[in-house]
């Protein structure tokens, strides 16, 4: 039954594994002094794999429904691939440091393997595949957070992540087994038919949602975020806040829409409360931060709250607005992280007050940072505005106007702290600003890509239309 044609459904995952293996072999064959060659090699190899995955394949299922491939999952995996490519390009300067020379291959291989896990998760058609994918994605991440293993913060972050992640996975798995006990199946489509608002299923659902809330760092399951984000290397933080979070949001949305369809009212109530909490608390914490990584960590918590508002829309409009938002969020957040890591690698500055007067010395970096922050705040005509706009539209179509109002208020508060960074760069005086520097070429290219996307995506109506058309088929 399974011929080559069906295997192609899994091309993203298989190609990534292949790339990882090739990098390992290449690493084995490279002399210690020449390990730096691995960086361009891996990036080009990965980019090549990404391009090959672009080729469309007919939708279908594998392993009796455990693995699903369709235009929407393919599109989403392409977004994840692109995001990881940008992360790779932004880590060049960091990896070239002397202390990392031994570990370059690990960096690429581990990141690619987490992405494999996420891809499986995105394509999962039953809870087992989903869980395996989730864990495949989580465990290498702890290693990556502790990548600077001689820095105590990094090691601490890694330990915190693995322990808390184990806790949350336990709760999540417990929830899944309750759902399995109540419905007698692990397949999404079977479970969906048997879901009722019985106490057992409600409890199972709450455990599941809490576990996912940990991955997306929703309040009150978010406490690990700041410490881990701060401890991890800059590009890993970027990866955590964009790719890891985006994949979890995507599969959560699918499961909510498809599996827990019968209890939509119930999960909407839960999400309503979590959205308000997450947006507000994320904002409150972000206001006080001076470390740019912690700042972006809390900002990304607040953004997760906005995403929940979009999920409330349900149906293809909700799905479309989520995928569209994540697409924009990839460029937005990676733009901000890219500038931050460029500055960190060049000068070691990672505080917002250290950015004072940056515009004088590095005008282009400051402009890209400003563009990204405007996009995070949702100021038109930058892409972030359109992302938020469609999510609010999606929630509006179900009549959640009070939630939208709270969302808009929170967006206004967030504007305050985003503008504080802009003010630091453009207005605040500094006798010793970060001196002018030239970033590595990969990083420059990734920033160029992000800023072009931020300016133009909002005006390319076709993208939203395309996502709409591919998600329309599913719902």
């Amino acid at each position, binding site marked *: 039954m399974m011929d080559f044609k069906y295997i192609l459904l899994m091309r993203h995952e298989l190609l990534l594994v292949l790339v990882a293996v090739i990098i390992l072999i290449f690493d084995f064959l490279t002399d210690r002094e020449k390990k730096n060659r691995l960086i361009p090699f891996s990036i080009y190899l990965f980019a090549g794999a990404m391009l090959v995955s672009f080729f469309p394949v007919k939708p279908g299922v594998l392993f009796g429904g455990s693995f699903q491939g369709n235009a929407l999952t393919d599109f989403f995996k392409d977004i994840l691939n692109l995001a990881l490519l940008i992360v790779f390009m932004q880590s060049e300067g960091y990896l070239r440091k002397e202390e990392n020379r031994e570990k370059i291959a690990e960096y690429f291989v581990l990141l690619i393997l987490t992405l494999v896990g996420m891809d499986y998760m995105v394509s999962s058609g039953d809870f087992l595949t989903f869980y395996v994918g989730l864990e495949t994605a989580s465990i290498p991440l702890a290693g990556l957070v502790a990548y600077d293993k001689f820095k105590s913060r990094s090691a601490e972050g890694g*330990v*915190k992540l693995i*322990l*808390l992640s184990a*806790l*949350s996975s336990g*709760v999540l798995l417990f929830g899944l087994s309750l759902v399995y006990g109540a419905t007698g199946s692990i397949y999404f489509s079977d479970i969906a038919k048997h879901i009722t*608002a019985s106490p057992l299923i*409600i*409890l199972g659902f*709450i*455990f599941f*949602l*809490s576990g996912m*809330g*940990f991955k997306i760092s929703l309040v*009150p*399951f978010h*406490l*690990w975020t*700041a*410490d881990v984000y701060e401890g991890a290397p800059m590009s890993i933080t970027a990866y955590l806040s964009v790719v890891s979070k985006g994949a979890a949001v995507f599969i959560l949305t699918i499961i909510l829409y498809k599996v827990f369809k019968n209890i939509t009212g*119930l999960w909407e*109530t*839960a999400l309503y*409360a*979590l959205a308000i909490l997450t947006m507000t*608390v994320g904002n*409150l*914490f972000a*206001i*006080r931060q001076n470390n740019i990584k912690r700042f972006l960590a809390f900002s990304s918590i607040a953004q997760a709250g906005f995403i929940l508002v979009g999920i409330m829309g349900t149906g293809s*409009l909700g799905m479309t607005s989520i995928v569209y938002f994540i697409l924009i969020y990839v460029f937005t957040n990676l733009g901000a992280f890219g500038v931050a890591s460029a500055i960190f690698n060049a000068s070691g500055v990672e505080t917002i007050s250290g950015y004072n007067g940056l515009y004088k010395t590095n005008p282009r970096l400051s402009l890209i940072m400003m563009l990204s922050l405007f996009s995070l705040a949702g100021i038109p005509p930058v892409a972030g505005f359109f992302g938020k706009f469609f999510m609010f*539209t999606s929630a509006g*179509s179900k009549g959640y106007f009070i939630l939208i109002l709270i969302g808009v208020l929170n967006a206004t*508060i967030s504007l305050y702290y985003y503008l504080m960074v802009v003010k630091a760069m453009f207005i605040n005086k500094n006798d010793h600003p970060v001196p002018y520097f030239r970033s590595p070429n990969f990083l420059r290219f990734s920033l160029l890509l992000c800023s072009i996307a931020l300016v133009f995506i909002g*005006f390319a*109506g*076709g993208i*939203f*239309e395309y996502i*709409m058309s591919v998600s329309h088929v599913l719902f």
Partner: protein
Amino acid sequence: MINYSYTILIPLIPLVIFVFTGLLGMKWKPLVSGIIGTVGVGISFFLSLFTAYEYFFATATGSAYHTIIPVNMLWLSFTHTLQIHMGVLLDPISVMMIVVVTTISFMAHLYSIGYMKGERGFQRYYSFLSLFTFSMLGVVLATNIFQIYIFWELVGASSFLLIGFYYDKPSAVAAAKKAFIVTRFADLGFLIGILILSYYTGTFDFSKLLQPGTHLFAGLAGVSFLGLSGITWAMALIFMGAAGKSAMFPLHIWLPDAMEGPTPVSALIHAATMVVAGVFLVARLFPIYHFQAPDVLIFIGYVGGFTSLIAAIIAMTQFDIKRVLAYSTLSQIGYMMVALGVSGYGGEAGLGYMASMFHLFTHAMFKALLFLGAGSIIHTIHSNFMKDMGGLRKYMPITHFTFLAACLAISGIPPFAGFFSKDEILAAAFESNKLLFYVEYITAGLTSFYIFRLYFNIFWGKDPEYKHKPHEAPLNMTIPLIFLGLGSTFGGFVPFHKLVTSDMKPFTTVTHWGIMLPSVGIGLLGLAVAWVLYKKENDLPDKISKKLGILYTSTYHKFYIDEIYLFVTKKIIFNYIARPIAWFDHNIVDGFMIGVGTVTVKISYKIKKFQSGELQQYAFVFVAGVIMLALFILYSLGYH
């Protein structure tokens, strides 16, 4: 079928030039940006002519024209019903308008190379001109009302930028702000009108809205607010936007001040193209006005008539030549509005519609010419005031003859262009509304008087003491004058009744001798009076103005309308509305916000201890969160 996709280039070329001149202009020599801009608009101009040729003549068999939409891209898709497109719509009025816009724009570009030579910000000037041209073309080619709105605002913004071009001059800055605020205020009405209209009809697209006999408006006609139906409100509010851009009374106050901008800008934006956008908008929506909101159409006619009369009266007393022309523009746009107001739909009944578009066309030619002529005079005299001029016919022969042609055209003397279009307007008004006919008839006489008062004051009379001998403008300034002079002289022979009509079908006009002869007569009368009073220096005008006393002074002060605005805004709105609101804003709203801010910061310090860095506590909060969530859900489900 002819493929018209290339028409998308007509607006896109100026856009590209705007982007490049705006970004890179400062690195080029000034002249380079001028030449690039001029050549680009020149290409657009020839493309427009070609489009007009193909549209009107290559396929015409004497039957009706069709609306063609060669390009229509989806821009924003909010839902499956609410979608916004951007595209190009070709029908007789849009084809006519692109010809007008690109012609005048090309002339202004060419002319400005000489006029603006050596000015600081030459490149900035050209990038703004291209931006304006792009926006204006976007308005006239719009396929839906939302696209019009977007470009409408862009037009307003570029007009603001160009009026305030001399930004180191306080009066220019004030004028730019005034223009922006007044038109922006009017656009608020426009936007609300669009929203009402599209909310009930469920579409922005002209292809659906403009079908005669469509049932889209059934829902809107049923709604009523303050005794008027919903459709009346919507169309009246949309007209408010049109009145703002076209400077109809009482929103006209910004236009005379807008003359602070460079003179070619006045010619392009504030005489020939942007200010007729309002007329174009009413014409574009004419089927809706005619079939759904005839009351509003009548109202438009009266607003136009009143504006044309009062502006002509004010124009008689002004001494700044650009201001005379500005009031004259108001008056002529009033004519076009009157023509739309009295028009019916289809065939002979649509005479007013045709006349309005015809007058728009001819007016663009002769008014742009008057402004550019005035520009070349100001360029050599360095003054805007009549008292500094006189006897210039000897020094500036080309300017003199072209200016004279424009004066004859605006006065409606045959066979100049204005004669034909104005005659059609008077005939249309005569058929349906006698009051408006008489108003416009009298205005025709006043027009002829004020324009020849201007003409004689500039070109005849005694030479004042010139510091430098005045000289004719250079070639790149006189070529546009000559071109527009030809347009003003022969433009009237374009057979508009076969080309641009209300239902897009040609019809035959009859000559209204009974109206034509008296209207030529009153034009000649005005000319004669101006001849007697101003050809030779004498004290008769002063005596007359003294005799008229308060009547004259109040006219000279433009009927104190600006002062009334100031009184209402400064004395009443500021004191009795703005101050209390400001107090409320300062103490209550700000106080609340500061309170919120303080509380937010305090809370954020209070909850700091949650973020302790201790793993056990994180795990505890996680589990507590799960339990809280479970309790919350159970509570909301009613388990309590």
